[in-house]
């Protein structure tokens, strides 16, 4: 156990591999460039998206807004000690003062959905939030489409991303290994493991297109060009809600991704996504 803990700490700090290892070419230049463009896009899109959300911090289901029955709302009301932030999910209310509904902007408590540190720009500024959001939405979508083309044209999707039958059969053991923070070594470390593949496929071919399409569904002009979008997502306000859920799914993916990067070797992973070179331990240590 002691040795196990030591090896985890070594991986997080980046001092791996400790023993004999060899370097392989892990990520192609296309994957690396595409990855970092995505990282920047997601940061800008998430923060500017929260800015846009703050202009009307409530979500609905259906074609239009039933103002009395939001699925989620972040509002403020006056309390004895000033503004109280109220998060309402369905009919349940939670006091979220300081973070959601009401939070401090330059030391002054303000009624705002998400706090200033999470939005771009910080202060309430819808017009600017929209400019940032649409600029990076274009970059994100173009980058995504180019990556798709690359992934299929160069066999990256079939070779590296799609889970194999073996992957699926060993999924149980894979999950246990992940929970014990045991990661593949030797030959097995050359490929993505089954959980990695599933996560990447879900994000690249599921979440990515879903967030773009629900975003487009919110555009009245796109609805006139492709009315089917409204049918697929059950209306504009539903699309807005799904878009919001997608955004937080990306955030969830990001958090898990960062934790896994660190637990499986911060420096080794980071280097492989910058220079392409990845070190593999060639024996069980």
């Amino acid at each position, binding site marked *: 156990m002691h040795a196990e803990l030591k090896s985890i700490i070594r991986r997080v700090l*980046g001092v791996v591999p400790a023993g004999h290892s060899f370097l392989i070419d892990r990520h192609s230049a296309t994957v690396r460039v595409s990855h970092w463009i995505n990282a920047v896009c997601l*940061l*800008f899109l998430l*923060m500017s998206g929260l800015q*846009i*959300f703050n*202009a*009307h911090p*409530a979500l*609905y289901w259906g*074609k*239009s*807004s039933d*103002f009395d029955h939001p699925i989620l709302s972040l509002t403020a009301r006056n309390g004895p000690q000033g503004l109280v932030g109220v998060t309402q999910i369905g009919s349940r209310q939670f006091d979220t003062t300081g973070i959601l509904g009401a939070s401090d902007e330059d030391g002054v408590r303000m009624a705002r959905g998400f706090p200033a540190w999470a939005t*771009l*720009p*910080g*202060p309430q*500024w*819808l*017009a*600017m939030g*929209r*400019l*940032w959001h*649409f*600029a990076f939405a*274009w970059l994100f979508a173009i980058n995504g489409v180019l990556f798709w083309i690359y992934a299929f044209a160069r066999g990256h999707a079939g070779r590296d991303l799609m889970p194999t039958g073996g992957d699926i059969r060993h999924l149980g053991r894979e999950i246990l290994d992940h929970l014990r923070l045991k990661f593949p070594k030797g030959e097995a470390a050359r490929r993505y493991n089954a959980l990695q593949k599933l996560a990447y496929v879900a994000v690249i071919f599921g979440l990515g297109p879903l967030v773009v399409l629900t975003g487009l569904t*919110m*555009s*009245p*002009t*796109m*609805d*006139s*060009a*492709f*009315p089917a979008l*409204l049918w697929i997502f059950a209306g*504009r*306000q539903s699309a*807005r809600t799904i878009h919001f859920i997608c955004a937080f799914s990306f955030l969830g993916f990001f958090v898990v991704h960062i934790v896994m990067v660190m637990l499986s070797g911060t*420096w080794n992973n*980071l280097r492989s996504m*910058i220079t392409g070179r990845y070190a593999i331990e060639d024996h069980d240590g």
Partner: protein
Amino acid sequence: MADDRRRFLTRSAAVAAAALLSGCSGLSEKKWVSDALSEVENLTRRAQRLFAGRQALAPEFTKADIAPVFRANGTLDPASDDYRAHAAKDFRDWRVEVGGLVERPLSLSMEALRAMPSRTQITRHDCVEGWSCIGEWKGTPLRLVLAEARPRNDARYVAFFCADNMAEEGVPAQYYYESLDLVEATHPQTLLAYELNGQALPIEHGAPVRLRAERQLGYKMAKYIQRIEIVADLGSFGGGRGGYWEDQGYSWYAGI
């Protein structure tokens, strides 16, 4: 050697991330940044026009979809004496002037507007803030009014000048205004609307006549319209960006 490089890269990454985060809000203040980002608007407009063309109609809904209370936004009750006087007389003497680059300037009474062929449509109103409301609008297709006024060959935009003053008391008046290009202005669903849900247009929704441009966001749909001007460019009136909210930094193209 590897350690040095590692430390250098880690540090550079940390510095870059910190600069990025603290710099973002500052960047928003820079004119060149907002100008560069605004260029994207043209790309969006071209791409959307490519898909939607001139004629694609905004989805229309059924009576069952109509919102019990249609939310009003922006000016809810223009304060000027002139407007109040019109309201007191049920807008009987209200006129919509149509001028600018036209061969035949018009001065339309509400009666004349109502006498023209009308269109009734149940559509979704999308506010830039994010909410939507569905209502039934009746009005005169703008293209019929334009056809009557006969725009000259150099006409490119249609501007709408309104009776609601957006400025606070004590500062020079700033009347709401908006503009559409000819594609959106001659779209079949673009109306000078005078009825909402079968009733005369309520004051909070722009009585007696407002614009409906169903493929655009709410702020394009000027209320309390008094004058329509056909122009060749957007720079020569108002703040020069084609609309009240555009002058505050919102995109002129509001199809998204």
